[in-house]
């Protein structure tokens, strides 16, 4: 699941300022720094990830996005605010999204599509919450507490007046690749949104 980094990288302006929320092990920021001379900070809560970031020389700030405010980040103080595969783990995803759009001139968000056909069929046939290789958690221990589909997300954007500049759908196999051209919300596994 690192295919989205290439897409994200395309949308980030060279030598710009980037804030990566839930930056994980710092792979993206470290790549943006070396490939595009980007100056960035990552916010992260997991201590192992923080350690990985430090070893990569990534500016990482220990921060809990669910409980610590982002008030101290100035309006439009970053060119791009990024959040990859973490929106669905937030306690208040809509508030985080609003903060991202306040702090960044642009935002990039990626999340797994709960409307993917495998999830739909799993629920339809088994009558149980989908568990797959991409979503390997049981309902009670999953960090993904706010799942949405592409449609759900776009509905939120429309409601809040958020402009979707680009959307790229990521697929793993050829069936999905072909299908996603016609029915992205059915065949797309991950979406990458470029917002402003």
């Amino acid at each position, binding site marked *: 699941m690192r295919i989205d980094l290439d897409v994200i990288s395309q949308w980030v302006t060279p030598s710009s*300022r980037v804030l990566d929320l839930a930056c994980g092990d710092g792979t993206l920021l470290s790549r943006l720094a070396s490939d595009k001379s980007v*100056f960035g*900070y990552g916010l992260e809560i997991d*201590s192992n990830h*923080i*350690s990985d*970031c*430090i*070893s*990569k*020389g*990534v*500016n*990482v*700030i*220990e921060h809990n996005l669910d409980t610590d405010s982002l008030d*101290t*980040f*100035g309006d439009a*103080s970053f060119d791009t605010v990024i959040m990859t595969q973490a929106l669905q783990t937030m306690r208040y995803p809509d508030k985080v999204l609003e903060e991202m759009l306040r702090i960044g001139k642009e935002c990039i968000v990626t999340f797994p599509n709960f409307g993917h056909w495998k999830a739909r069929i799993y629920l339809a046939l088994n009558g149980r919450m989908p568990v797959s290789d991409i979503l390997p958690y049981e309902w009670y221990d999953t960090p993904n507490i706010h799942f949405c589909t592409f449609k759900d997300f776009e509905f939120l954007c429309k409601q809040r007046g958020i402009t979707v500049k680009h959307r790229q759908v990521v697929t793993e196999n050829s069936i999905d690749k072909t299908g996603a051209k016609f029915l992205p919300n059915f065949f797309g596994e991950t979406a990458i949104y470029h917002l402003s």
Partner: protein
Amino acid sequence: MPHSHPTGSVGIVTPSTQRFTDPLILANGDVLEEYDLVYETYGTLNQSASNAVLICHALSGHHHAAGKHSPDDRKPGWWDNYIGPGKAIDTDRFFVVSLNNLGGCHGSTGPVSINPKTGKAWGATFPRLRVRDWVHSQAKLADHLGIDTWAAVIGGSLGGMQAMRWSLEYPDRLRHCAVIASAMKLSAQNIAFNETARQAIMSDPDFHDGDYLEFDTYPKHGLSIARMIGHITYLSGDGMGEKFGRELRKGNFNLGERDLVEFEIESYLRYQGERFSGTFDANTYILMTRALDYFDLSREYGNDPSQAFAQSKCKFLVLSFSSDWRFSPQRSKEIVDALIAARKPVTYAEIESSHGHDAFLVPNARYHDVFSRYMQQITI
């Protein structure tokens, strides 16, 4: 996991003393015509002098940060947990310089030194130093050692204040600045604790307005109480509870029991006060606590910390400890926020610990991991 803490030692170390005869103009307008700085070094300075690290000590610290002075020493230097081969400040890579600050009482010129103008001990007349005075004297020591640029300037608590001041006063002379359990200025509560400690010293009849040396006395009792007050604030309530609880040192509460009952914590604090007051100078304690109180990173930068940090050119590591209420994680976050607002590189971690402010001295697996990783990625 303290048992996994690296045990490498720098071994037996010997302090050096350097006399400086270039007058040092102090922030309060006084001039120190000449002065001594006592320091220790660990590790080897490389050819290009690019691997030097400066350790700035805290309130009661001194130059002896690592190793032992003799094999019989009961304890190693004050930061031996983090300085040594294979440790966070790895002496196999770095050349570490640790000095006793001016105004100290461990060999550098301070209140117990003789004022050449009077032939008597400075005592209470020793200039009221500010953090920047230490920074300027440390820069003189760097010149003497042939160190143009520090790979890192590192300090905890009051030492962190010096490290931050370094980044503003000499932005081209350090590449990394590690600020541990520190703050950009003290809170009113912090100043209140310091003043109470000072009053304990000054109200000791043996203090004689700071000229106790002339009277051949020593305000041991006052200094002891000052240390007890300080010590309470360096520990956390939970940490104290875990360690001492309500355990009794002597006596009991049986019916009919008249003898004094004493809690373990009482005896512990008294022991700490007793030990400290036997080795520390009261005037130095007053001077150091005042320097702490006076410090305000952004006073001359329109009280805007981001304007202050705009001067800096180095990268920052900021660390705080969850149970530290004297220099709480919030104070460290303010540093981080100011650095982000100033668009400076910074890494921040809040370390889980029950040791309060003292946590920066105590073995802690995550602290060691974060600190080590940061130091390892510094190019030398």
